């Protein structure tokens, strides 16, 4: 036990590996939120008038809303007037045309994070739309995608070049008035990713974005919109790390997915933002609204997430299964160590006939971490033959942590089959003993067991991501065991 305690201390005191700040000149508005700031953002981004109005309406609605406090998380009140709502790397004002034009310091940041864009281009075959603070600085593989008619660009670009698509789908899945944070995002979002896959096209690459929160005190408000037209197929990767900082940073993103007839969208996230230090100081507040609509029949949306970072995670990627025979999936691993708090889960709304959904959620709590699964499965009256299977398992490591499950099943159709299962346990002494007896160190044994615990979710991740996620989990868990 002694050596374990030592190990615990050693790792608990370990610093956040990706904690560094890149010194880039930024051009920001003063902290605070008002209609003027929104007009400034909108003007700065040369947005059409309808979008400015759209933002202002969202802002006005937001003013009437109250911050939700039903989640099982605790934090100091956020002062929304203290946040800087717009910041763009200055050197990008002219707009880099290629990777060579990109600020070398930014490239250096990516190198430190282990995302060499050049290499990725060649090796991984991943098109990276890297978001550095609020403006996209590099977009790769665009030509190859364009040849197939796929649109993959930053959100601002999409507003300029494909306003009809943006106007048609923006806010159609997550309405402006959906919730407090979605309304805030709708008012002040600065950039994000946009993807459109035309009819019958199988996207040849895995689309990917790397987020980074950088400028001090800048809340980042991402907006992602992915539309898969009839019979198309796309896999999208999202991953993030953030530099160390002592002030809580707010992140309120909105992700909207639309799948038409026979379309297939796979959305994978690896989230590794700064979780705060062991006293719970600093760290990112992550309040995200993610929702996918299976509009067409036989469509399918699959969410996979690995959440290891953030001081607070408040996130419920959901599926609205409107089309007949549509499928929704949610695979999640949420790790909360140190003072991290995660309240995450999903919502599956079955509207169409023979709709199916699967929920696999794995929560790991260590040290003082608090992890909650909160989910809702709703079978509406017309959802003949709907089927849901949910499984939520929690693993507890340490005496101070907590794991909570709040599933909610609402069934209004007798032909529905809904099943929910959950279990909570700690790593068994006998399992550890068995592994150690085979010559593995304690640390390795724990990794082995945790990886086995999470395997069902890792399997759903694209190859490169799975490796990264597995490593992340190991790093985040190291030392929390004792």
């Amino acid at each position, binding site marked *: 036990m002694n050596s374990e305690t030592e190990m615990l201390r050693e790792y608990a005191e370990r610093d956040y590996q990706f904690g560094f700040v890149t010194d880039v000149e930024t051009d920001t508005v003063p902290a605070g939120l008002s209609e003027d700031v929104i007009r400034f953002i909108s003007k700065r981004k040369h947005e059409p008038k309808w979008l400015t109005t759209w933002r202002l309406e969202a802002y006005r609605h937001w003013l009437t809303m109250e911050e939700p406090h039903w989640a099982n998380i605790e934090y100091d009140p956020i002062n929304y007037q203290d946040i800087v709502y717009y910041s763009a790397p200055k050197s990008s004002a002219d707009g880099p045309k290629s990777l060579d034009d990109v600020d070398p310091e930014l490239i250096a940041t990516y190198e430190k994070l282990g995302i060499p864009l050049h290499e990725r281009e060649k090796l991984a075959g991943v098109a990276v739309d890297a978001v550095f603070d609020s403006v996209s600085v590099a977009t790769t593989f665009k030509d190859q995608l364009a040849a197939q008619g796929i649109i993959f660009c930053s959100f601002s670009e999409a507003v300029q070049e494909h306003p009809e698509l943006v106007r048609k789908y923006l806010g159609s899945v997550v309405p402006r008035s959906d919730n407090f944070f979605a309304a805030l995002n709708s008012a002040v979002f600065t950039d994000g990713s946009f993807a459109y896959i035309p009819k019958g096209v199988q996207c040849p690459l895995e689309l990917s974005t790397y987020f980074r929160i950088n400028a001090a005190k800048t809340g980042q408000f991402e907006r992602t919109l992915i539309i898969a037209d009839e019979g198309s197929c796309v896999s999208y990767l999202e991953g993030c790390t953030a530099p160390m900082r002592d002030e809580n940073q707010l992140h309120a993103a909105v992700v909207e997915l639309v799948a038409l007839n026979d379309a297939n969208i796979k959305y994978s996230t690896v989230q590794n933002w700064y979780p705060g230090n062991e006293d719970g100081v600093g760290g990112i507040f992550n309040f995200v609204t993610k929702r996918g609509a299976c509009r067409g029949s036989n469509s399918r949306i699959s969410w996979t997430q690995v959440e290891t970072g953030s001081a607070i995670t408040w996130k419920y990627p959901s599926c609205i299964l409107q089309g007949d025979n549509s499928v929704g999936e949610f695979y999640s691993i949420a790790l909360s160590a140190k003072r991290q708090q995660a309240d995450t889960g999903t919502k599956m709304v079955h509207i169409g006939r023979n709709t199916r959904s699967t929920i696999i959620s794995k929560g790991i709590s260590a040290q003082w971490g608090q992890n909650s699964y909160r989910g809702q499965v709703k079978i509406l009256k017309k959802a003949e033959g709907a089927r849901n299977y949910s499984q939520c398992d929690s693993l507890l490591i340490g005496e101070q942590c907590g794991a909570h499950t709040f599933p909610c099943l609402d069934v209004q159709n007798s032909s*529905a089959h809904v099943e929910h299962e959950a279990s909570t346990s700690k790593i068994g002494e006998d399992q550890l003993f068995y592994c150690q007896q085979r010559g593995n160190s304690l640390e390795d044994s724990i990794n082995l067991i945790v990886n086995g615990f999470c395997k069902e979710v890792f399997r759903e991740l694209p190859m490169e991501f799975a490796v990264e996620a597995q490593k992340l989990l190991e790093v985040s868990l190291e030392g929390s065991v004792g």
Partner: protein
Amino acid sequence: MDWKALLASADGPPELAALRTAASAHFLDRGLPSTRDERWRYTDTNFLTQQELELLRPVIKADAPAGVRVRPLEEAADAAVPLLAAEADMTHPFRLLNTALLRDGLLVEVEDNAKPERELLLTITTTSGLAVPRLLVVVGENTQLTLVERYRTDGGTCLPVTQFSVGSGSRVEHLRIHHGSNDVHIGCVEVRQQRDSLVTNHLLTFGGRLVRNDLQFHLLGSGAEARLNGLYLADGEQHVDNHTTIEHAVPHCDSRETYRGILGGKASAVFNGRVHVHPDAQRTDAQQSNQNLLLTDDAIIHTKPELEIYADDVKCTHGATVGQLDREALFYLRSRGLAYDEARRMLVDSFAAEIVRRITDESLRDELAETVIARLPGMLAEAA
């Protein structure tokens, strides 16, 4: 309903006056729960405000075996006051109402090491109007008690509260059976268990316009074990809501919860089961399951099994299912020559039997199995 006037008119043993006044003030301050309150989201009780209710005394019939002392609250007020005061819940609106109108009820006592030969039978009969019976059950150490609490009614509103205090090493089996049709029944059961005690609760609901049961189990001594079995049958426009909470406050306690529901017609049901494992309650073993059978497309079920765990060395599982009769099983039975109706009845009956068979007493078990069977043809005919 003018609550203020109703509460002001309350009378009863003077020893209980202080409790009544305090609860009354809390209730008037708080009022009835709204559907914005998460715990009352699917059960709207505000219609009670619309109707005029007359406070009526329920008829409580007790058939006590030797070794069990049963006294009306009015006669045993002195002994009851400290018990009531120590465990007063000032948050639950209907418990408050019960306390604010406290008069009718029983104090049941079982002495240490007593061995009652048979079960204690209580029948509480209410008619129209409002009834607020209270049962206080104090079970000593190393003893046992089987308590059958039966509610019979043909309308009206009943807000019963039953409180158990179970001493170390005692075994209690508690049956709470509600036979209703057009009544409102909002009941609370609170159980406090000491070391190595075992309490088995069977909650059977056979309909009622609106039935709500709030069960709270406090496991306060190591080795305590709680078993909660529940069965609810509802059809027509009936509504059944079961909220259970099990507080694992100390290490080494077990809880087993199994609730099953059969819903026909336009019935709606709510199940909310909460298991709360406190920070030091290591080696807790908690299992919870809720299964529901929907016979019609108009029936609605909201189920929410919750686990809240603040200790690491625990084994906790919960499960919930909602489904319909298995077609394969139906086909199998019919291929063996059973008529469609008969086959359906058999399957539904066996679904319910899983709960009924857990009752220890044979004659009670048989009687309740009969009650289920008698109820089924109507429910199934409506569903067909």
